[in-house]
């Protein structure tokens, strides 16, 4: 099996050789850039349009677009491309959580050196969060492109049935509703069974959509590490674990491992944790469903805007490009106001830029799509991830402890958080 895995890695590398067999053409003197967007259809269509526009303006330096080749994940494919030196010039589907690895490998261009980078960066994001996009060496290798803040979506059909006047702000309010759902008679003719559903698979990235956003919301914006040390060994994290543990213990949340079933569309759950991508999905697959969006509940239900996880994606220029300056020109074109509007129109994903709700270019869109406006309002309060090469492993540890303390309750939430913190400390110390 190990050889099969190695084999698939080699096959990805060979596939990448074919995808980016641009070396020979470049040796013949042809000048062009290569660009990889994400491989979903909406983003491929968007990339096609942007590239078409660029190629009309810059026929002397066209862009050739290929979606990220298929693989287990885009991170894995990009890693294989870096190893095989077959990266494109530009890629726009970079999760900041892997940036440290790319920087350590010397695979990405330092964007600080590019003309106008500072002003472009500060025009897109508030100065308070600019630092969050720098690497541990203090330099900038990524340009933040889009953000998908995670919120709760609620089925409005059940508001009258359950007597919901306002959305739950605290954990106790949330589970009061859950208790009402549990007490509903089975033969009431309604499919509703649980308050929400989360995939309990103990896979690291699943916790980016339950524990992590809830921890950010409850802690007022903390991430997992501070100055390279564990920063989640605290009562807030315990409360978040307790929240999920209570849901599974009292049967408020289904423990099923689902593969193809959307419980929200089937109206079996009242709420779901979602990003803005869900807006267009629901419009397509459940056009008659009535729903509303709300912030993640917090332990005490404090007032003020709720924070959440941003699920951001950035743009990078890879180091093996022979044309970094021209690649930078394309990156600037990619994030122009007009193309950011197209990002909204075609993918319903939110460009990271200041004044998104005020600028005339976007205002009209949000008036026509109030569902997405809720997410756009959340962008300034959406937090990213820590800068560490161990991020996946840290989330893997938390995922295992979540499984033990919340889903199966073989240890208390306090023990779960404490054990996770111990294991993360060990991980960080061992490799130091």
């Amino acid at each position, binding site marked *: 099996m190990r050889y099969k*895995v190695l*084999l698939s890695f080699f096959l990805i590398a060979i596939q990448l050789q074919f995808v980016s067999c641009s070396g020979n053409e470049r040796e013949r003197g042809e000048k062009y850039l290569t660009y990889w967007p994400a491989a979903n259809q909406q983003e491929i269509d968007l990339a096609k349009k942007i590239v078409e526009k660029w190629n009309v303006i810059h026929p002397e330096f066209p862009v050739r677009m290929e979606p990220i080749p298929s693989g287990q994940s885009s991170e894995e494919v990009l890693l294989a491309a870096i*190893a095989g030196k077959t990266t494109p010039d530009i890629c726009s589907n970079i999760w900041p959580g892997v940036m440290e690895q790319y920087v350590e490998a010397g695979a990405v261009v330092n964007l600080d050196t590019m003309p106008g980078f500072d002003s472009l960066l500060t025009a897109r994001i508030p100065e308070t969060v600019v630092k969050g996009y720098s690497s541990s060496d203090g330099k900038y290798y990524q340009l933040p492109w889009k953000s998908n803040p995670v919120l709760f979506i609620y089925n409005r059909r059940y508001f009258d049935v359950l007597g919901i006047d306002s959305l739950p702000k605290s954990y106790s309010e949330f589970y009061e509703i859950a208790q009402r759902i549990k007490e509903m008679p089975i033969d009431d003719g309604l499919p509703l069974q649980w308050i929400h559903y989360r995939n309990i698979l103990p896979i690291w990235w699943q916790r980016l959509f339950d524990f992590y956003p809830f921890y950010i919301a409850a802690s007022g914006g903390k991430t997992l590490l501070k100055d390279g040390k564990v920063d989640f060994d605290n009562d807030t994290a315990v409360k978040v674990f307790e929240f999920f543990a209570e849901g599974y213990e009292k049967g408020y949340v*289904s423990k*099923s*491992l689902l593969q*193809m079933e959307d419980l929200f569309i089937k109206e079996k759950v009242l709420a779901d944790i979602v990003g803005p991508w869900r807006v267009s999905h629901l419009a397509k697959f459940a056009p008659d469903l009535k729903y509303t969006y709300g912030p993640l509940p917090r332990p005490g239900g404090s007032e003020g805007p709720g924070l959440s996880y941003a699920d951001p994606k950035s743009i990078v220029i890879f180091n093996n490009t022979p044309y970094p300056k021209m690649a930078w020109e394309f990156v600037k074109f990619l994030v122009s106001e007009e193309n950011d509007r197209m990002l909204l129109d075609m993918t319903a994903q939110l460009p990271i830029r200041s004044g998104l709700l005020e600028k005339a270019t976007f205002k009209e869109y949000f008036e026509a799509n109030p569902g997405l406006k809720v997410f756009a309002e959340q962008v300034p309060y959406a937090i990213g991830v820590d800068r560490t090469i161990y991020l996946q492993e840290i989330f893997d540890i938390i995922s295992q402890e979540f499984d033990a303390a919340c889903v*199966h309750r073989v240890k208390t939430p306090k023990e779960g958080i404490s054990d996770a913190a111990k294991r993360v400390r060990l991980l960080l110390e061992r490799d130091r």
Partner: protein
Amino acid sequence: MNRKLSLMGYLMSAPYIIYFIIFSAFPIFFSFFLIFHRWNIVGPMKWVGLANFNMMFSDPLFWTSIYNTIIFLLIHIPLQVVVALVLAEVLNQKIKARAFFRAAFFMPVVVSGVVVTILWKQLYSTDTGLLNNLLMAIGFGKVEWLTSTAMAMPSIALMATWKNVGLYMILFLAGLQSVPAYMYEAADIDGATTLQKFRYITIPAINPVIIMVLILSTIGGFSLFIEPYVMTGGGPLNSTLSTVLYIYRQGFSFYKMGYAATLGFMLAAIIFVVVLIQRKLIEQDD
């Protein structure tokens, strides 16, 4: 003439030799080289001596994964051998629609493992799965097929058996068809019962096939990956974390290629020892 022939031989075998060098020999030697290094695929390699072995011996999750894999083998191999043998025996008789049943039982073998696993995951779903709906319709309670530590690995073993049994059934069928009919006729004249014929004629006659099936099932069982990867992610509480899944995570989720290679070599050594013991036991018994 001889030189010409041998040149032709090399030419004819060249495609496989090239394939073998690229996809087997090179990865094996490269993996061996990696076990003494720390390497994250994209960065420079760092010599770490035996540090990966130290880490392996103090890594409880690796040993949990070995334990889980052995549990899987203990359920899967006997179940698979018995079911395959029974099916082969039945389909060796002159029954109606024999060809159809042979094809039907073999069908899951040729279906993609991921597709089969996704379908079974849905069947096993605690709250919405077909199996539990059927159980509840006849008055039983829900079974946590994939979400309880007691049931998850047996459920995976059951699914893996369903997926692979067709292949072993065909092997047994080939073995059964090579048993001379006169042996059964002689046993009939001596008044042997069906069970006696099975025990004293069929089993010894197909012993080489049994050895082959056991070895193939053992090696295949140690390679358990797709099922826990898709169905349970190694949970609940790491009870379905197979060794190959753990190696995959170390290598391709956390980019610890040196450590993953070390675990891979350890797994190869364990498989070698287990198969050796298996052969010794069966051959002695024979």
